[in-house]
């Protein structure tokens, strides 16, 4: 009998004691916590330091994606610079694994801290290029793929990279 009462009032006591303790949860969405640096959230497409799109539509992200949520169609501008004509990510399928970011050779696709992607309509979960493209460089502020690639684009001729010699003179007989 005493044992039973002891257990019952003991429980009341524990509850009462916790009522005056500081809270472990935060009042989301009014209050927000800091997320880890490596947190993987909403995907963005970044730009070069000179403001051009970084994505060259190489299809590596859509190929590596384990849930097949990225759909790309590449094309190129009149200066033969490649860019995605269409870049769709279906966030209702995306599992935020970050493999696309790992695969991206131009550091264009990056995962951000943002995770709030709720929609009432599933069709709105497909984000198009205009929704994904941001104005800044994201995590890698200095990288510019075309400064390392061998192809010519607007503003960069063949052989103009730091690690390249100027093009050979094909009409010369000298060794």
């Amino acid at each position: 009998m005493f044992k039973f009462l002891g257990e019952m009032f003991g429980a009341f006591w524990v509850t009462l004691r916790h009522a005056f303790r500081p809270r472990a949860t935060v009042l989301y969405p009014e209050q927000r916590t800091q997320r880890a640096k490596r947190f993987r959230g909403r995907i963005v497409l970044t730009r070069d330091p000179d403001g051009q799109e970084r994505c060259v539509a190489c299809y590596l992200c859509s190929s590596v994606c384990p849930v097949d949520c990225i759909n790309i169609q590449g094309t190129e501008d009149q200066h033969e610079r490649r860019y995605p004509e269409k870049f769709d990510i279906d966030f209702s399928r995306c599992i935020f694994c970050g493999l696309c970011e790992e695969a991206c050779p131009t550091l264009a696709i990056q995962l951000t801290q943002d995770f709030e992607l709720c929609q009432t309509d599933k069709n709105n979960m497909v984000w198009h290029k205009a929704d994904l493209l941001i104005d800044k460089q994201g995590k890698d502020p200095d990288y510019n793929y075309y400064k390392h690639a061998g192809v010519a684009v607007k503003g960069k001729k063949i052989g103009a990279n730091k690690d390249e010699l100027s093009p050979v003179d094909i009409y010369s007989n000298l060794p």
Partner: protein
Amino acid sequence: MGTIYIDDKPVEFEAGQNVLQATLKAGIDITYFCYHEALGSAGSCRLCAMELEPTKKDDKSRVVMSCMQVAQDGQRYRLNKGSADKVRQHVVEYYMTRHPHDCPVCDEAGHCHLQDMTILSRQTYRRYDGKKQTFPDQEMGPLIWNTANRCITCYRCARFYQNYALGDDFGVYCSGQKTTFRRSEPGAFDSPFSGNMIDVCPTGTFTDKVFRRKYSRTWQLEKATSVCNHCSTGCNTEPGGREGTLRRIHPMTNPHINPHFICDRGRYGEHYSEASDRPLKCIIRKGAKNPYDNIYTHLTRCLKKASGRIGILSSEHEDLQTHYMLKQLAVHYKGIFSPFILPDTETRTRSAIQATQLPPSLPDIETADAAIILGSLTEAAPMMDLAVRQLIAKQKPIIMVHAVPSLLADLIQHRNAGEVISATPKNWHQVIDHLDTSRLSDEKVKKIVLLGVAGEMDVPAINAFSRLKEKLSQETVTVQSGFALEGANAMGAAVISNENSAHELLEAIQKLYVDTLIVCGADPFGEGAAEWEPLRNKIRQLIVLDNINTETVKQADIVLPLATWSERCGYSVNYEGRVQPFEQAYQRSSVISPTEFVAHLTPHSVEALYRQRDVWLTQLSAQLVISDQMGIQLNLQQLSGIKNTYSSHIETEGLQLVKLPWHGGGVRADFAKELASCNPWKDHYVYLHTDTAKQLNVTTGKQLHFKSGASLEVLCDNRITKDCLAVTPLTLGRIKCKANIVLPLHQIHTGETDQ
């Protein structure tokens, strides 16, 4: 033949094979670049190194290039176990020192030989931190894109272009570290086989420029085995589509037709399916449709009303399954079916098939000892030309008769490889009968191939062709004869149709027995305007299924979008009588296949129609020879249906009107805009020899008036045979004349004589 040992594993080899061939055939992975099955070994890439074990006790083992080493029984090689492994890795590392950081923007990535070989040799990091050598790119026309930096100097491109395709406008520049491969001047390639450089190149130095604008990685493409529909050779292709559009065509290996290559018409001509003016919607221009009906209910009602008065026209460019289905439609509605647009085409095709004996396959042509060619073969069937070029390379005797400029004739003359006779097609029968074949009567000549171009020959010429074959046939000499027919499935069309079907259909329309015409993949009012244009007002209802925007589509009352060969399945019969099925590569949502069309208009379902087709094909195969080669081949001698009894009146006095073909041109290929932009001939001009121009009293720039009322500007060109008026196929439709007709001089006049 014998056995060699690669890392102690026994590998069988045939006589004359080198070690690399035997190793690859045994399925052992080994790195190589410059070796190619068709082009052989060059020994220049140093990547197939293997270590040859010594036979004597005191000898040392040595590293050899396996592609230059003829396999000998009992030899032992070390591939991965010896020091050659390190050699191969260092060679790849050396190649990669100057290779640009291009893979993400390179079209080759994903099916790149260099990527594969680099990974296979486990070369992952670049230790070299010096500066990379670079090369200027060259503009190479609308079909091929050049990125010179990516070259690894394996010489495959130059070996293909100069030694295999016998082109001379592309080659090697500079030497040593600076070696690069270019055309002598910027611009499109002269060769009809330039597209193969894309496949031959193991890196991304040459890539497909048409594919570049709508690029997808190879694993994203929906592919299937298909058959090229641009000439009667029937090369096997592999179309790749994505999201309902065609992206690119690759050759599909068929050792009996095209083991490695396809021509540019096959590769780029198929892009007609992406033409901006392609009909992709149902259009009803005449006749009110009940808004609750779908188009097929409307069509069924129309056809039921017109039952018994229906004509169905297909073309020699459509496949056998289409012909079969349309024939079923004709049976259901008691109509008349013809797979030929013009009676002349039908006559020529049937006569040519009758004259075909032991038709040579492309490998047969390549291994022949001599060839006689009648007509511009490059332009009619480019891949046959590529096979003949192998004979030129081996300096075998060749005789060629032609009327219009042909790349092959130029090549034979340029290489001094044989005799080229320029004659008007109406005189060909005399030329063939009096042909001097003494240069072929060598003891070494065991096999002669006779190749005709059916589109340029009349019936007397085809008969003379048969006589020539009899004359050449001896006990010791095999003569194989074949024709490049007018249309990919001209043979199939002749097999399935009754005699004189085109003539019968035209006559029925003329006599008003037929007033509703269903046209599938044919262009009677453009290509066949000479005979069909006068009948247009006798056709009350014109229903057209097509995948290009032809003159007939523009005039049609109802247009239905037809699927291309890449977008449906079917059967095609090539010039040898080889029946080849092709598969659907990708699904385009708005188009309809002929089988679905017939299923909508008859009580039969698609499945039932397929079952009937299978029964019919089995019945046909009672007449077929099941050959040991790929597919089934028709025995042409046993086919009773292919007889030619129709003959049209042939003028002999006057100038002959001939079609000006080019190697990338064709009824459909003309709608592929990138390829068509390379056409050397201009539409709306008439090309004449200077002497003919003198005879007509005209010069370049003057107008020439025809009986139909049309007039064309004259361009003098001495490559055209005398007594010929050469015009492009489109112009032929415009002046409403048939190809190969002889125009009496009074029907052609310069405007000045009238005044």
